[in-house]
């Protein structure tokens, strides 16, 4: 960021807003918002890499964050030995067959000359692979899911420290993105968008319905934490003396300490990412990406391997989203495939990027903060507005109706706030230079 007074002012205002929340509402609320804002900023950064740098319209963010979240379960949850005994082998073998089939099919497609023979061979390989896969996979999965379905019914994870799951989440998302990119990066603008959207829906469908993997819609909760739980913190003597010293309640002190712990971790990650992103964007690499974004044909003619660069940035951006997804699941302490909805996990992140200013890392970060702040605070704001509106009204059906509908002011307020921000800075709060 060019150290520009306007930008500093904007970040300052954002900080002020959080501070106001801390004073007027509660410090823990401010920290809750801050922590999710940090994660949102990371996701926005990831999307900004794809859109802002390279012009890739990825609307599958939801899928990548979900895959990142899945990593937390697979890395940090304790394994379920009974499930492994019941069907671990069959599942893995079945999966191997699946992967093998696809690889064989791809190899076949590449090697054989086009024609009917190829098509027939392909179908034969696919059908045989599918049948084999079902043969091993289905009974194994049934066995796993039968192991105490109410609490486990899945294979569990590796029982490793949860922070390890963050890079793994990024790698998972990167791997998924690589596959998705191979398939769909040839598409342009909105076609790429719907393809990624579709693939992300497929990812969610798999996560919802394959309960041997991470319990599907039954959710995995109580995931390990990188920071002690507030309840446990309350027992720590230093927290107690801190609470005494500050004159705060013990619960509040413990919560604040814990949240600050998360905030520290998240800030560290975000800081590192911004550093990398800024250095990349302001280098010849960034220049090349912008050239590709502006005009692919010309970039190709100027010797840039657009396809490869697209794939790289797509994988990198998705990895960042996956990282954010893993961090979010860690913060929530649960993986809940049912919560992954495009509106919340894809479009909201997009709003962050655009409101913040696409193509500009600091813009995306600010967008993450501003939009998340709005998303959380429009609810009381909406209610407040509604109370204001109805204050002068006579008691009656209309007033009751309106007051009862106050919840819907939440999205309405969100819409109005978004339009206002975009109105005054159509290119985002911190536009690209």
């Amino acid at each position: 960021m060019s150290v520009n007074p306007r930008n500093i002012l904007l970040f300052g205002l954002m900080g002020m807003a959080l501070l106001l929340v801390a004073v007027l509402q509660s410090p823990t609320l401010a920290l809750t918002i801050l922590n999710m804002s940090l994660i949102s900023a990371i996701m926005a950064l990831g999307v900004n890499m794809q859109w802002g740098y390279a012009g890739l319209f990825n609307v599958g963010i939801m899928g990548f964050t979900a895959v990142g979240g899945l990593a937390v379960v697979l890395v940090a949850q304790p394994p379920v030995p009974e499930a492994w005994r019941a069907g671990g082998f069959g599942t893995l073998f079945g999966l191997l067959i699946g992967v093998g089939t696809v690889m064989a099919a791809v190899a076949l497609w590449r090697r054989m000359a086009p024609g009917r023979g190829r098509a027939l061979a392909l179908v034969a390989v696919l059908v045989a692979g599918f049948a084999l896969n079902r043969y091993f996979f289905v009974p194994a999965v049934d066995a796993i899911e039968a192991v105490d379905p109410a609490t486990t019914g899945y294979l569990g994870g590796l029982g490793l420290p949860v922070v390890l799951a963050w890079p793994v989440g990024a790698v998972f998302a990167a791997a998924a993105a690589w596959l998705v990119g191979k398939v769909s990066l040839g598409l342009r603008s909105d076609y790429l968008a719907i393809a990624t959207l579709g693939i992300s829906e497929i990812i969610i469908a798999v996560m919802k319905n394959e309960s041997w993997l991470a319990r599907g819609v039954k959710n995995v909760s109580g995931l390990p934490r990188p920071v002690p739980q507030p309840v446990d913190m309350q027992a720590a003597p230093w927290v107690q003396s801190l609470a005494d010293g500050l004159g705060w309640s013990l619960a509040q002190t413990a919560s604040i300490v814990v949240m600050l712990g998360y905030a520290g971790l998240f800030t560290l990650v975000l800081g590192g990412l911004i550093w990398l992103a800024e250095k990349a964007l302001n280098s010849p690499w960034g220049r090349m990406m912008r050239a590709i974004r502006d005009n692919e044909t010309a970039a190709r003619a100027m010797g840039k391997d657009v396809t490869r660069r697209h794939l790289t940035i797509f994988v990198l951006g998705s990895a960042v989203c996956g990282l954010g997804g893993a961090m979010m699941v860690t913060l929530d302490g649960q993986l809940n495939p049912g919560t992954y909805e495009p509106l919340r996990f894809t479009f909201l992140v997009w709003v962050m990027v655009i409101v913040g200013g696409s193509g500009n890392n600091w813009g995306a970060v600010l967008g993450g903060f501003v939009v998340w702040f709005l998303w959380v605070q429009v609810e009381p704001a909406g209610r407040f507005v509604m109370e204001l509106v109805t204050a002068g009204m006579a008691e009656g059906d209309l007033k009751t109706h309106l007051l009862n509908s106050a919840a819907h002011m939440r999205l309405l307020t969100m819409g109005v706030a978004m339009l206002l921000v975009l109105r005054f800075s159509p290119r985002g709060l911190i536009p690209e230079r």
Partner: protein
Amino acid sequence: QEVKFGVILGFTGPIESLTPHMADSAELAFKEISDSGLFLDGQTITPVRADSTCVDSSAATAAAERLITSDGIVGIMGPDCSGVTMAVLQNVAMANGVPLISPSATSPGFTTTESNGLFFRTAPSDARQGAVMADVLMERGITSVAVTYTNNDYGKGLSDAFAESYAAAGGSITINAPHEDGKGDYSAEVGALASAGGDLLVVFGYSDQGGAGIMINAIESGAFDTFAMGDGMYSDALLETIGSDLNGTIGTVPWSEGEGTEAFAAFATENGVNAESSYTRESYDAAALLALAAQAAGEATSAGIAANILNVANAPGEPIMPGELAKGLEILAAGGEIDYVGATNVELIGPGEAAGTYREYIVEDGAFTTVSFR
């Protein structure tokens, strides 16, 4: 002086059509208590609503955080969907020691969740209902059914439990297909269900969501004409929309043998609250329990409430029906014991688990007719 309770439900999002009624019911209980003037020496209750969104754990967490630390609520009626419930419980409620009673988180997973004695629910776990439903069907000699469930932890848990019991009892399930709520078109699901066939279609869903969509579609296309329904499907609205085609449908719903439910229906209707929507009864009970527990503790503190919920919910004591909360307050104020029965025959087994009886009903002449209680 006023005591604040949180009402955290998904006012926007997939179950936004259910939550207003749930909130109304809960607030009905709070109002009843406030109006009685007997609550903690004349204190009043102010319910504070917040949006759990049903799906966005982070937003729900922030909302709960706001209610607890900024608005100063002492107990939460809600949240609703299991995911956000778990998030609020583990990330906010436990940190602040605030008890919550969920009216609708029926996932068996909660039974074993460690909550420091802060999590309660008025809807029984699905595990038991699955068994009850299997019994009902087997007793009627229905041995082959198609099953559809709403694709969330409620539906999946219930259908798992049912499948297990039903198979153990010798029944066979031709197809066990999930459906997604919030969509309008269920022809594909019905097509598959119809093709699989079966004596009847078991629907574990919500009465004004996909469950209803599936049933209407199944009837109109002639795929099935008899149904068995889980608790989420029980509602007068369904009777109204489907009409006479619903006759012969059997179902189970948490219900007390006694007048609790009717009492609630009458009381709610009188106060202009829709009593028939899903989970309105559970919501009323959850709210009532919170307030009664505060009364029993003699103070409106989170810790006091948490410690007394089991106390007021279970025997021994004077049974308390919906609309009789004032009586309960009086007894508690006098140092007596109550056994809150409420609209759903509340019986809490411990934190995290509700017992309760189920009512087996059959639809006859466009009305739910009780067959037996189990």
